[in-house]
């Protein structure tokens, strides 16, 4: 909401402050000022000039030479403007002065444009006559300005006086951010009331008195509200003998500063009252209203209606319409109809000031794709008490401006107004909530400044809340009013009394922290990606049509298909990130993410889905499958998971290389998978090299994780080690061999490690050679040869059953 300071001052005449002071203090009392613009910015040394004489320029056809009286002094000014004539009063910028913009009306330069005396085609020119654009404004705001050329001031302007003031530009426009609870502040009067309270000055709203012509409104019009649930009040008044003309300069200036284009006296009055009272008004040409009857009712599904902007609008049964005896004439609260629009020939006007249901207007405007100034106000939910005063104010202005006569009386169809809310005055409770010691007197004076009536009944004090403050419902609301005007900055600064709570992270968050640490130790950097993606992702990942992962949660109102489903797999985000890096030619990229996937329990969703945290690692460049396997093992080890992790090559992940993938199992439980990305998937993501990913499903990992550690002692007796080397068919996996070693190694088995893998010319086709060091140890004695012989024999037997052929050492 934009408003000129001069308009606020009209109701708070004692207000004296700089623009910055106003901005700061209003913001601190809760009416946030977003910014302000001085209308006279960069307008320097600009006075009224009277053109005394115009001659042709001797050397230029398009230029003229003017003698301009600037108040006791005649200046010679050369101009190319086509519209000036002798006797015109014009704004003249003097030598060394400044204007705000160029004559083309383009964006205004920050520092303005300096004007110096000089010569134009050899003829001296001591200054410049200004167009409205050069003064930083436009024809929209000054409709009387010529399409091109110099702005002509009123004939009574006095040469030599300040032209900027004459144009109403010695003013500052403030832009406010009004919060949704303060409907009353979407009006000049609302803001003025706040300003008066903030600066502790009297608030003097306009005195509304209507001079009527002796006729009776009921002879002109009747009103029937059929759908009272959507219209709590409908006030109608009639003005006759309308004479359309421009509205007065002060009204035009105030509207223009609010960003509203002045049109004519009738339209300007409705806009003026809408700004002043926050109550949208509508004017119908009564002669177009069939039967002189207004009916407020819902539209029918599928009906069409032409709004006054000429557009056809499709209606439905939830849209409220203003109708006459025969037809619709306006969409309630949003826009009037083409068929009842005011023209210059209007004789009798019907004014409407109504209160419609806010949410209904909001939804209707949204469905129609038609948000107007009026609907923007209605949708916040207006105060029904305000409508009557606003319509009277409009009629007062019509009469005062000589725009027409006011017919006596008001048709007022109104639901019973709710009685004013009365709340107890609880000063101790306010202080207790705020942590302050504000006196009762100070609190009461704050309330009174806000037009909250203080009702005293003996010792008991109650507060009567005005109807325009529907936001004041309880104690906390009143405490806020006290705090706002006492000053948030004056409230003391304390810390909550000693804590009986403990600061901590949940176990899940600690495990995630460990995941980040390990990933980073291993050279992986953390990425983040969106939770939603395109359903096309499933094809890119080569998922079968019946793959369970395709059962994703869809967003009903997504930002386009690319963001339309909640991911069920973390791979797309990772692969897109790797692809971004690959295509920017970044080398050796290692990334990880810790983010949720969303697994529906059923579709369509009837209960909240499973949100499963996924620890996803991905890389390309230096390293291979085993590099990633190493990171997985480091992580699981760091969570105290010491038992053997099993890697099952039958992981069944279509997006991974069929020969280079494994499911990760621990104590028979699947924790996730890892592998090389399938070359076709790499191609789909434009990754031109081998890439690897690992995914750990954190909810599956969590039950095994622990940060408890126990000292197991350091072995004091030497180990006995045995090396065995064998030739095995390729189908036998290292994992199978290790299972045998673990199962048969017995109590004394300490560790084993693979130290050689060979396949090649010396080895039988289809086989490979593997060599392990197996180590045995006892904690309490030095082992004898005989202690390990039995275990070794069992191991060798087991390996032979696998098809291994032991080699001589």
């Amino acid at each position: 909401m934009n408003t000129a300071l001069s308009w606020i001052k009209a109701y708070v005449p004692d207000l004296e402050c700089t623009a910055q002071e106003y901005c700061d203090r209003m913001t601190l009392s809760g009416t946030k000022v977003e910014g302000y613009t001085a209308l006279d910015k960069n307008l320097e040394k600009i006075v009224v000039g009277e053109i005394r004489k115009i001659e042709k320029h001797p050397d230029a056809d398009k230029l003229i030479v003017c003698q301009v009286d600037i108040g006791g002094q005649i200046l010679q000014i050369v101009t190319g403007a086509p519209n000036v004539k002798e006797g015109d009063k014009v704004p003249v910028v003097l030598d060394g002065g400044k204007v705000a913009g160029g004559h083309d009306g383009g964006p205004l330069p920050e520092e303005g444009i300096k004007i110096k005396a000089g010569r134009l085609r050899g003829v001296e020119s001591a200054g410049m006559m200004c167009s409205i654009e050069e003064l930083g404004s436009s024809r929209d705001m000054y409709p009387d300005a010529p399409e091109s050329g110099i702005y002509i001031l009123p004939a009574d302007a006095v040469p030599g006086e300040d032209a900027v003031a004459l144009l109403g530009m010695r003013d500052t426009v403030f832009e406010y951010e009004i919060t949704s609870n303060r409907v009353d502040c979407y009006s000049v009067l609302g803001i003025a009331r706040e300003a008066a309270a903030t600066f502790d000055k009297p608030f003097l709203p306009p005195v509304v008195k209507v001079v009527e012509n002796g006729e009776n409104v009921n002879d002109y019009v009747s009103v029937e509200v059929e759908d009272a649930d959507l219209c709590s009040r409908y006030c109608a008044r009639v003005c006759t003998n309308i004479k359309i003309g421009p509205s007065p300069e002060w009204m035009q200036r105030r509207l223009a500063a609010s960003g509203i284009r002045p049109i004519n006296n009738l339209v300007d009055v409705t806009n003026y009252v809408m700004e002043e009272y926050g109550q949208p008004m509508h004017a119908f040409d009564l002669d177009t209203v069939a039967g002189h009857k207004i009916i407020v009712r819902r539209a029918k599904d599928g009906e069409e209606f032409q709004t006054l902007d000429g557009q056809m609008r499709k209606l439905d049964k939830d849209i409220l319409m203003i109708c006459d005896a025969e037809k619709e004439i306006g969409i309630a609260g949003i826009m009037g109809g083409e068929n009842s629009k005011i023209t210059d020939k209007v004789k009798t006007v019907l004014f409407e000031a109504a209160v419609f249901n806010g949410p209904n207007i909001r939804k209707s405007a949204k469905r129609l794709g038609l948000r107007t100034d009026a609907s923007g106000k209605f949708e916040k939910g207006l105060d029904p008490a305000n409508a009557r005063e606003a319509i009277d104010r409009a009629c007062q202005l019509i009469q005062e401006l000589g725009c027409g006569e006011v017919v006596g009386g008001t048709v007022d169809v109104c639901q019973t107004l709710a009685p004013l809310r009365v709340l107890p005055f609880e000063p101790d409770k306010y202080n207790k909530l705020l942590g302050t010691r504000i006196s009762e007197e100070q609190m009461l004076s704050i309330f009174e400044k806000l037009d909250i009536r203080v009702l005293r009944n003996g010792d008991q004090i109650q507060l009567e809340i005005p109807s325009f403050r529907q936001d004041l419902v309880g104690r906390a609301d009143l405490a806020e009013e006290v705090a706002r005007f006492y000053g948030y900055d004056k409230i003391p600064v304390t810390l909550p009394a000693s804590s009986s709570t403990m600061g901590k992270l949940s176990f899940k968050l600690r495990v995630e922290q460990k995941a980040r640490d390990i990933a980073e130790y291993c050279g992986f950097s953390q990425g983040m990606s969106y939770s939603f993606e395109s359903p096309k992702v499933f094809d890119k990942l080569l998922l079968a049509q019946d793959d369970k992962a395709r059962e994703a949660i869809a967003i009903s109102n997504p930002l386009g298909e690319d963001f339309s489903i909640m991911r069920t797999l973390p791979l797309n985000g990772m692969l897109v990130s790797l692809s971004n890096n690959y295509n920017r030619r970044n080398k050796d990229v290692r990334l990880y993410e810790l983010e949720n996937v969303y697994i529906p329990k059923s579709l369509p969703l009837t209960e909240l889905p499973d949100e499963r945290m996924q620890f996803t690692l991905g890389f390309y460049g230096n390293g291979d499958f085993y590099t990633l396997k190493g990171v997985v093992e480091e992580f699981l080890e760091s969570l105290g998971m010491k038992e053997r992790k099993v890697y099952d090559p039958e992981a069944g992940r279509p997006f991974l290389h069929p020969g280079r993938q494994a499911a990760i199992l621990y104590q028979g439980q699947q924790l996730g998978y890892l592998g090389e990305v399938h070359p076709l998937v790499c191609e789909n993501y434009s990754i031109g090299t081998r890439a690897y990913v690992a995914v750990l499903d954190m909810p599956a990992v969590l039950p095994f994780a622990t940060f408890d550690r126990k000292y197991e002692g350091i072995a004091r007796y030497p180990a006995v080690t045995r090396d065995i080397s064998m030739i095995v068919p390729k189908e036998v996996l290292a994992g199978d061999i290790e299972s045998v070693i673990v199962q048969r190694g017995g109590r004394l088995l300490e560790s084993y490690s693979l130290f050689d893998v060979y396949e090649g010319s010396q080895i039988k086709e289809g086989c490979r050679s593997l060599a392990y060091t197996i180590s045995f140890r006892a904690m309490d004695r030095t082992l004898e040869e005989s202690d390990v012989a039995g275990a070794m024999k069992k191991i060798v037997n087991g390996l032979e059953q696998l098809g291994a052929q032991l080699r001589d050492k």
Partner: protein
Amino acid sequence: MKEKLNAIKEQAIAQIEAVGAQSAQALDKLNDIRVNYLGKKGELTALLKGMKDVAPEERPKVGQMVNDVRAEIEQVLDKATEKMKRAALAGRLSAEKIDVTLPAKMNVIGHRHPNMIALEEVERIFTGMGYEVVEGPEIEKDYYNFEALNIPADHPAKDEQDTFYITGDILLRTQTSGTQVHELEKGRLPIRMLAPGRVFRSDEVDATHSPCFHQIEGLVVDRDITFADLKGTLAEFARELFGEATKVKFRPHHFPFTEPSAEMDVTCFKCGGSGCRFCKGSGWIEILGCGMVHPHVLEMSGVDPEEYTGFAFGVGLERIALLKYEIDDMRLLYENDIRFLKQF
């Protein structure tokens, strides 16, 4: 005998001194000399062996003389050896000189996401003040995201937040404030809670907007919690996060679930409050929204507002990260370009 001993001594010392300090075999040569004179077959040993020819009464004296010479030669020899060793070490050290300005051999260590670094910092500050870090669901019931926060159906705030819906009743949470409700419903008081998490709003992607971003919600509920406590806690937070000199300013604002409500500004950490391009000349930067928990919110979740009060606050994590690390485009946070991530 004496002459003979002296001659041996001088000969030995001359030989020792003749050994060139620079010679590579210097230590070997010294060792040879040691063997030649002092060894089992050395000259002095031979002399001692010849003692049988000396008169018995002379023997102690001669023995003493031999030992003196022996000691003297040994001393000279040790000194020379020590000197040689030192020279050899000095030679080695000087030969081993390296160019310390050659490039470092880096360990490849990964980097945390700037959002995460900022979050961990915030978590550190609040866990230090006794807050427990908790989480809530990202896909949420309308009740927790809106209704229980005093935003009933038809409330304009519902439109303002451009919500993504899954069904009529299930949505992507638009704010972490729903975690307040979950925490209150647990019925464990007092509460000091910090709830970071991902939130969603229907904003097109650009330099300052993302449909997916993060907030950190804070909630304190106890007896006698005041607005002054809110101010003190958040001022402390701002100083910890942005530096000791940081000042804060509270401006009245409106949130449906707090009353009184405020927005907190901090002095611009670039210019210290004097006004610069970064803070658009105002000297202040808006950082978070906060307020006293609305009594109706407490009531709806089963906490008696006559007995308990509390405050709540919500911080945009990306906002903190962008400000603190001077990142000028929000899109960078979700592109995961390694050249970006490595800077944190």
